[in-house]
């Protein structure tokens, strides 16, 4: 039986209360057992919570009943609830387990920055948020896919546990046991301290910091070993977010939350690089895909920290402006909105730059089917990586979004934010390969956004205005990316562009990759999503070369290649029609992976209010099983009978053995009769 738990304790010190937990499962080490109860409606909750005679119960509910009110009722009665199992089925009209004000303590809007804008006082970005992901539960919560095994569980319930005429139930009852013991406790500071106090040669870590890699690419690359300020260099950063999460972390899909943004940026990068190979630009452009943004801006805070401490190829003085692509796929009209920060705009220089950027953006939509509209001047920025840059310095920048005030995303950071939410529909008679090529309406609208972004970046970088209209994003690329990231990952296009070496990227599973950032592995391994984005960006913006595989590994020996400026990736390539071997090739690209772990762990400050301190608990295994349980009475009866039999037999045997000579005395052995 397979199931997935949210599986993690993640600790983060909140500045008001002392501890917060994220989907904490305080499961016992030997598993939690409860009698199965399939919840049919909210009123049915009375049975496990108060009326049922055989607590504790293991409540099985469908996703439509997975609401905050039901979960909180169960949380309050946790002595009678042994666990909850959620079976995802249809999407409810709205559901967001995240908070109403995402990342409110690590953005730029603090009390000191602007009192009125802090803590979402003016605009509540995620009003549908119920904060379920941040609640602490005393029992495990599992998610089970709807398949044969779930049917078996329900059948067991219907056979043995159904209440007949309101009377008591007949033992044996069908029960379920969930194992999801988490090693970490309390909060990050405590568990990191416990891990560090282990002085043995192979210390046992009980929790791991979250993190991953940011994917970065300069249009005109710099020497990757020369860190710090670059004289006379001015860079425009085009940013997007890679990760998202859900209540059940491995089920995170983030279609509108993150995929819409980074797919648009990837397409814009491709358009820009194609059209502007030779044109000189006054400014450089950095395409930055930040990972871990959901967990208090891990990736962007790391990049800002590196820039401030001369650990990155440029520093904050080199940054001219920032254009970030937020959630752009669920439009309520034909407009996209430009969000800017009102506080930094009080400075005239910044204000002029922002106005210029807005002008470039608005003129880029000429000939396209939408337009950019500025939001209200007093409204702050939505949660975005740009806020971390603002926290360090007043940099002019704009965040693109499809929402004017609060999010249009009804499923922000939940497992319903999937392909269906973006209306990615394919005609039913297409094969998977044909679906890959089919250009959906969503793809078309995102392509237009990408075109506008590419043109804006071109103008921001000082390109020639006459060349602008030649820049167009490719709708085929966009629709293939949407298909690969949201529907099926092991399609032929991803396999062509992918790496043959990294098996985490082998994409044997058809499912989309996991968007949750995961733990920062010490072994320089990124997760599948990062590699996908890296290889895609490399193929879309880099150049294919004639190098052989061994040359690709060591290109410095060749005269025209340099690993200081470029990275060389061996790409799988296509299978030509008449053979079975792939034609792999070497791509020269400026794409690099930059470590994205919160600076708090480098600084050893596990209670930092400045940086993210999210960690994930380690666990041994996650499993579940069902069986029948007998009544307590029968068990005690068995024990009682056993003890009685033992004592009786001891007494009788002792008695008989002491009187044995009396009882068995009538016939002596023949050879003793001589006496």
């Amino acid at each position, binding site marked *: 039986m397979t199931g997935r738990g949210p599986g993690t304790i993640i600790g983060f010190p909140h500045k008001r209360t002392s501890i917060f937990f994220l989907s904490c499962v305080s499961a016992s080490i030997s*598993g939690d*057992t409860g009698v199965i109860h399939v919840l049919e409606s909210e009123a049915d909750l009375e049975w496990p919570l108060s009326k049922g005679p055989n607590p504790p119960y293991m409540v099985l509910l469908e996703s439509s009943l997975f609401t905050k009110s039901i979960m909180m009722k169960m949380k309050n009665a946790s002595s009678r609830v042994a666990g909850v199992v959620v079976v995802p089925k249809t999407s409810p009209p709205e559901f967001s387990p995240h908070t109403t004000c995402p990342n409110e303590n690590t953005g730029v809007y603090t009390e000191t920055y602007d009192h009125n804008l802090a803590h979402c006082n003016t605009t509540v970005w995620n009003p549908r948020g119920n904060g379920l992901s941040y609640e602490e539960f005393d029992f495990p919560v599992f998610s089970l896919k709807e398949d044969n095994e779930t049917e078996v569980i329900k059948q*067991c319930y219907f056979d043995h546990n159904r209440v007949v005429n309101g009377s008591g139930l007949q*033992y*044996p009852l069908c*029960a379920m*046991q969930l194992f999801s013991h988490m090693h970490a406790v309390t909060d990050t500071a405590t568990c990191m301290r416990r891990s560090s106090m282990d002085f043995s040669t192979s210390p046992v870590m009980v929790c791991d910091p979250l993190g991953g890699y940011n994917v970065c690419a300069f249009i005109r690359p710099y020497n990757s070993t020369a860190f710090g300020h670059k004289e006379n260099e001015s860079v425009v950063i085009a940013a997007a977010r890679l990760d998202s999460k859900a209540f059940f972390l491995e089920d995170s899909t983030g279609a509108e939350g993150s995929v819409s943004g980074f797919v648009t940026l990837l397409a814009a990068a491709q358009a820009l690089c194609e059209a502007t190979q030779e044109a000189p630009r006054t400014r450089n452009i950095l395409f930055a895909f930040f990972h871990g943004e959901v967990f208090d801006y891990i990736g962007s805070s790391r990049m800002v920290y590196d820039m401030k401490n001369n650990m990155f190829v440029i520093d904050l003085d080199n940054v001219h402006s920032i254009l970030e692509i937020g959630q752009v796929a669920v439009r309520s009209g034909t407009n996209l909105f430009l969000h800017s920060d009102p506080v930094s705009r009080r400075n005239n220089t910044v204000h002029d730059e922002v106005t210029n950027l807005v002008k470039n953006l608005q003129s880029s939509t000429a000939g396209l089917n939408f337009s950019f509209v500025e939001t209200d001047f007093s409204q702050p920025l939505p949660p975005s990586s740009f806020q971390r840059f603002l926290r360090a310095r007043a940099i002019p920048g704009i965040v693109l979004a499809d929402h004017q005030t609060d999010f249009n995303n009804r499923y922000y950071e939940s497992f319903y934010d999937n392909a269906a939410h973006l209306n990615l529909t394919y005609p039913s008679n297409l094969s998977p390969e044909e679906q890959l090529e089919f250009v959906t309406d969503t793809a078309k609208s995102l392509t237009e956004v990408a075109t506008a972004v590419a043109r804006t970046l071109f103008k921001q970088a000082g390109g020639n205005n006459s060349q602008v209209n030649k820049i167009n994003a490719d709708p085929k690329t966009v629709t293939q990316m949407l298909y690969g990231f949201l529907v099926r990952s092991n399609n032929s296009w991803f396999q062509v562009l992918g790496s043959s070496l990294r098996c985490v990227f082998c994409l044997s599973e058809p499912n989309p990759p996991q968007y949750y950032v995961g733990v920062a592995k010490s072994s320089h391994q990124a997760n599948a999503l990062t590699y996908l984005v890296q290889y895609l960006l490399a193929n879309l913006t880099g150049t294919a070369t004639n190098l052989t595989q061994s040359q690709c590994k060591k290109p410095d020996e060749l005269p025209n290649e340099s690993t200081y400026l470029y990275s060389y990736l061996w790409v799988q390539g296509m299978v030509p029609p008449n053979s079975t071997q792939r034609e792999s090739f070497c791509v020269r690209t400026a794409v690099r992976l930059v470590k994205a772990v919160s600076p708090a762990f480098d600084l050893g400050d596990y209670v930092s209010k400045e940086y993210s301190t999210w960690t994930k608990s380690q666990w041994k295994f996650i499993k579940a099983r069902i*069986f*029948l*349980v*007998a009544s307590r009475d*029968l*068990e*005690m*009866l*068995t*024990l*009682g*009978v*056993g*003890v009685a*039999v*033992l004592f009786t*037999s*001891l007494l*009788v*045997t*002792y008695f008989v*053995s002491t*009187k044995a*000579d*009396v*009882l*068995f*005395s*009538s*016939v002596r*052995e023949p*050879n*003793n009769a001589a006496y």
Partner: protein
Amino acid sequence: MTAAVFFGCAFIAFGPAFSLFIFTIAKDPLRVIILIAGAFFWLVSLLLSSLVWFIATKATNAQDLTLQKNLLIFGSIFSVILQEVFRFGYYRLLRKANEGLAAISEEDGPPLSVREMAYVAGLGFGIMSGAFSMINTLSDSLGPGTVGMFGDSQYYFITSALMTLALTMLHTFWGVVFFEGCERKRWWVIAVVLCVHLMVFSLSLLNPFYVGSILPVYAIMLLMAVWAFFSSGGSLHNITLLWTCRKSNAETSS
């Protein structure tokens, strides 16, 4: 089904055997040796009979359930017969050993009477048979679940333990009666023991109709207990002596 059931069933199945061991066998090393050798003989008989059954099942279609059930019945009958054969073989071995033991012992005469050897040998058979019946079931009973998912009775554990208890005691009584019969050259005793053993086996086939299997088996056990008591030197007179609490042996033998 949790520790309560584990301990309950363990006590039921092995309680009497354990108390017999403690009070009658443990203090005499020779008895311990005979007990263990008896257990070993039973084990060898089981091994050989299961070899026959194993070959039979492998040579036939595993999907045909009635055939497999019939093969199991055949294998069990063969095993019963083989157990009694080994019991006879053990009797012969012990008779031979008895002469040797008599020669080297310090007392005049054999250190153990044939009756005592019969009882110990029977108990050895019984303990080993009980262990093989019950150990797997006991280890499964430690988990949180119980039997019944596919419609079986939830009383499986307790009835298995009761059956094992009965079988252990039955083997003990059969040992006593069998050896006595061989001593007196009453060969019909062997045939009766074999038939009763087969009858007990066929009653166990009635499971899960526990009323039909456990009650008759316990009735047979009581009958065998009476027979073993009488054939090992007991009598009603002795019992009345016991009740009146007089040491009449001391008076009548002097």
